C-alpha cells in the first residue's frame, strides 16, 4: 500500500508561535502556562491556561476574514498557511480535486458563539452576526482552509474530544490511500472565553492550582486535573509517490499506524480500550513494541485515568520499557489540537534525535514509567502518540522516519 508522508508542519502553541519557536521552547522545557489573559478569570476556581502568545491575526490574515472568524479559526488558518509553506506546496499548481482538508474540532468557535448568544439574549435577534451560522459550527476550520487554498477534494471534520486530532489525521490518511494526493489535516482548538471556561469546568477535570509549575502534573502523585489550552498543529499529508512527483525534497516522516477504540463499561470483563488501541496501531504499522523509541502519552493528570494509561503502556512495553513523555505539560491540553501537536513533536524528535521533556512532574513510582523529565538525546525512528477523549474515546498513532 502507498505510504502517507508528512511533508509540512504548522504550529500555533502556547509555548511558541510557529514551528521553530515552539520546538526550541519545547526542547528546552519552556512552558506557556500562565494566568488567563483573554478574560478576567480571577473569579473562577480555575485560573490558568495555555494561551498562544503574541498572536495578531491582522498581521497574517486579510481583514475581510477577521469579522467572520473565531480566534481559534484564525489560529488554524495561520497554521495551515505555515504548514503548506513548510511543505513548499504551491496549491495553485496541484489539481483542485486532488487536495482535501480534514480537521478535528471539539467545541467549534465557542468565543464567537458566546458573543452572539449575548447579542441575541441581551439585545435581540437582529443583532446576531451574519457569520454566526458558520463561525461557531464544528466544520468551520475545514471549510475556511479549503476556501483559502482552493482545495476541492474529499474533506471532512471529526469530533472525538481530545482524541479527535489523531482521528482526523487517520481519516486524512484514508483519503490519501484512496487517491487524494494531498490532505491538510490536524486540529487547532481553543475555547478560552468565560462560557467555554464554565463548560470546561463542568468536566470536573480542570486544575484549580494557581501555580503554573504545579497545575498540570500527569503521572504525578499530586495530579489534580489539567490546564486547558488553545492552539494545535496542522500537518500536510501526501501520498509518497505524489510528493515525489511534485518534487518535494523531504518529509518529516510517515503516518505508519493507527488504532481507535471505545472504552467498555468500567465493570465489564473487557480490558481497557487504550491497550487495544495501542495494539491495533502497532499491528497496523507492522511493528512490535520493541521498535517504538518513545511514547507521547495523553497525560490526563487525573489519577484514575493516569493509572489506566500507565498500565496500558507498562503492559505493552514492560515496566519502564520505553521512554514516555508529555510535552503538553508545557501547553496544557489543547483538545483536538493536542494529538496533532504531539505528532509534530514526534516528527521533530525523529528529525533531531531528541525526546522533549515532561516538565514539573515528579513521577509516581507506582506507574512504572520511564518518564522523560529532561530533554534526552536518543536515536528516534519510531514514535507512538496517544490521545484520549472524554467519554471513552482512545486513539493511538505510530509515526516513523520515512527513510
Amino acid at each position, binding site marked *: 500500500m502507498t505510504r502517507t508522508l508528512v511533508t509540512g508542519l504548522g504550529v500555533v502553541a502556547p509555548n511558541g508561535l510557529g514551528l521553530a519557536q515552539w520546538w526550541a521552547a519545547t526542547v528546552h522545557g519552556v512552558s506557556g502556562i500562565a494566568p488567563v489573559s483573554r478574560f478576567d478569570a480571577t473569579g473562577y476556581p480555575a485560573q490558568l491556561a495555555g494561551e498562544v502568545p503574541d498572536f495578531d491575526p491582522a498581521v497574517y490574515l486579510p481583514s475581510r476574514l477577521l469579522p467572520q472568524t473565531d480566534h481559534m479559526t484564525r489560529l488554524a488558518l495561520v497554521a495551515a498557511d505555515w504548514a503548506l509553506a513548510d511543505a513548499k506546496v504551491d496549491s495553485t499548481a496541484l489539481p483542485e480535486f486532488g487536495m482535501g482538508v480534514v480537521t478535528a474540532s471539539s467545541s467549534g468557535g465557542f468565543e464567537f458563539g458566546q458573543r452572539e448568544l449575548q447579542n441575541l439574549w441581551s439585545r435581540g435577534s437582529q443583532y446576531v452576526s451574519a457569520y454566526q451560522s458558520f463561525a461557531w459550527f464544528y466544520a468551520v476550520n475545514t471549510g475556511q482552509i479549503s476556501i483559502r487554498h482552493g482545495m*476541492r477534494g474529499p474533506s471532512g471534520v471529526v*469530533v472525538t474530544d481530545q482524541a479527535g486530532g489523531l482521528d482526523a489525521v487517520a481519516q486524512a490518511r484514508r483519503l490519501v490511500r484512496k487517491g487524494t494526493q494531498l490532505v491538510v489535516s490536524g486540529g487547532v482548538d481553543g475555547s478560552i472565553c468565560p462560557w467555554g471556561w464554565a463548560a470546561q469546568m463542568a468536566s470536573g477535570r480542570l486544575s484549580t492550582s494557581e501555580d503554573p509549575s504545579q497545575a498540570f502534573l500527569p503521572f504525578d502523585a499530586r495530579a489534580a486535573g489539567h490546564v486547558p489550552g488553545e492552539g494545535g498543529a496542522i500537518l500536510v499529508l501526501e501520498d509518497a509517490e505524489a510528493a515525489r512527483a511534485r518534487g518535494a525534497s523531504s518529509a518529516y516522516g510517515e503516518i505508519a499506524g493507527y488504532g481507535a477504540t471505545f472504552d467498555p463499561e468500567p465493570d465489564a470483563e473487557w480490558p481497557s480500550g487504550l491497550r487495544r488501541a495501542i495494539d491495533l496501531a502497532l499491528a497496523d504499522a507492522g511493528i512490535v513494541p520493541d521498535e517504538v523509541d518513545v511514547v507521547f502519552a495523553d497525560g490526563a493528570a487525573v489519577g484514575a485515568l493516569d493509572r489506566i494509561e500507565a498500565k496500558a503502556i507498562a503492559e505493552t512495553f514492560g515496566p519502564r520499557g520505553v521512554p514516555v513523555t508529555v510535552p503538553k505539560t508545557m501547553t496544557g491540553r489543547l483538545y483536538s489540537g493536542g494529538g496533532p501537536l504531539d505528532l509534530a513533536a514526534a516528527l521533530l524528535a525523529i528529525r533531531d534525535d531528541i525526546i522533549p521533556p515532561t516538565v514539573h512532574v515528579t513521577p509516581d513510582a507506582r506507574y512504572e514509567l520511564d518518564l522523560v523529565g529532561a530533554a534526552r538525546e536518543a536515536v528516534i525512528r519510531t514514535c507512538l502518540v496517544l490521545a484520549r477523549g472524554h467519554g471513552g474515546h482512545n486513539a493511538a498513532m505510530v509515526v516513523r522516519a520515512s527513510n
Partner: protein
Amino acid sequence: MSRRVVITGIGVLAPGGVGVKSFWSLLSEGRTATRRISFFDPSPYRSQVAAEIDFDPELHGLRPQEVRRMDRATQLVMVAAREALSESGLAFSDVDPRRCGVTIGSAVGCTMGLEQEYRVVSDDGRKWLVDAGYVVPHLYSHFVPSSVAAEVARAVGVQGPVTVVSTGCTSGLDSVGYAVELIREGTTDIMIAGATDAPISPITVACFDSIKATTPRNDDPEHASRPFDATRNGFVLGEGSAVFVLEELSHARRRRARLLAEIGGFASRCNAYHMTGLRPDGREMAEAIRVALDEARVDRLEVDYINAHGSGTKQNDRHETAAFKRSLGEHAYRTPVSSIKSMVGHSLGAIGSIEIAASVLAMEHNVVPPTANLHNPDPECDLDYVPLTAREHRTDVVLTVGSGFGGFQSAMVLVRPERRAA
C-alpha cells in the same frame, strides 16, 4: 474480493411521527410536517416556521436521568438507534463488540442544551463573565458533541471506533460514508451509523434569519417548504435523526439478515468558494456524483431516482439542478428527482441520513416520494421533480446528495441488494 457494505436496519425520528412506518406514510402520502414554531415564542423572528417532532422521550424508553442529561439531539438518536437495532434483528450478545463502531453526523451538536444553559449562567445574556456556580455537570457533554456518539456506543456496548462527523449539512451523508470506509478497510464488521440534529432554538433561528436563509412565509406554515417552486424563498428548519445498522455483506448473509440496500458508492467534494455560497455551475457536486457512481460501478443511465438536497433556497435548487445535468447528462431529464425537505424540513446535519432512509424506503416500496408544495416550477429548474404526489416507479438504484455550509458537496449511491447478488 473487496468488502461490501449493506444496510440491515433503519430507525427514523422525523417530523410527523416517530419510527420508520410513520415516516414513510408521511412521505408516501405527500403530507407536510412544517408548522409555526411551538418550542418558544417565534414572534420576534423573521422566520417563524419549523418542522418539529412531537416526542416524549420517556414514552420511547429513555430513563428520566437520561432525559435530563442528554441534549434533545442525543435523545433523538438514542431512539432511532434502538429502532434500527431492533429492525436489524442483530443480537449484540452474539457480536464481537470490538468489531463494531459508531459514527453519528451532526452539524450543530447540542445547541439546544447549550443555549438553555447559557441563558442560566449568563442571566439571559446580561453577564459576559458567566456565573459558573450554576453550571450543570452534563454541560461538558453539550460542549463537545462527541458525547452524542458516545451515548449511543455505551447503550449498544460497542468497543470499536466511535466518532461524530460534523461537516455541516452534509454530516448525515458523510457520517455514513465514513462508516462504510471503516467496514471496507476491515476495521469493523458492523457500524451503527447515522445522524441527528435538534437545532430549533432561538440562536439557530436568529443566525439563519440574519442571512435570510430560512423562509419568512409565516402565514402559511404547512406550505412553507417549497423546493424547486418559483415562489420558494428559503428553507424551513427541521429536526430529527436516522440511524442505520451497516454490515459487511458476508457477515449479514451468515446471519440471514434482511438486506435493505447496498451502499455502493460515496464521495464528497468541497467547493472552496464561499462558506455559505454556491457556484451556479454545480461542478463539485457533479464530480462527487460521478465518483460515487464510479465507486458503485453503476452507469449513470442506471440511476432510477435522485433524492435531492432540495433545500428550497433559490441558490441551492439551481445549483443542484445544474449538478444533475452535468453529471447525468440527458438522463437527468428522464430521472425522477424529489426533495423530502418539502415535508420534513431541513434538519441540518441529520437530514442526509434521513434522506438515505427515504431512499431505501423508496427502493423497498418502488415508490418515489414527492416534492410537496411544488405548483409552479422555477423555469430554471426544468427536471422532473415529482410534484405533490408520490409515484410508483421501479427503483433499484438511488442517488442521494447533500450540499452545505462550508462548501461540502456529497453524493451516495444505494443499490438494491439482489440486483447484483454475486
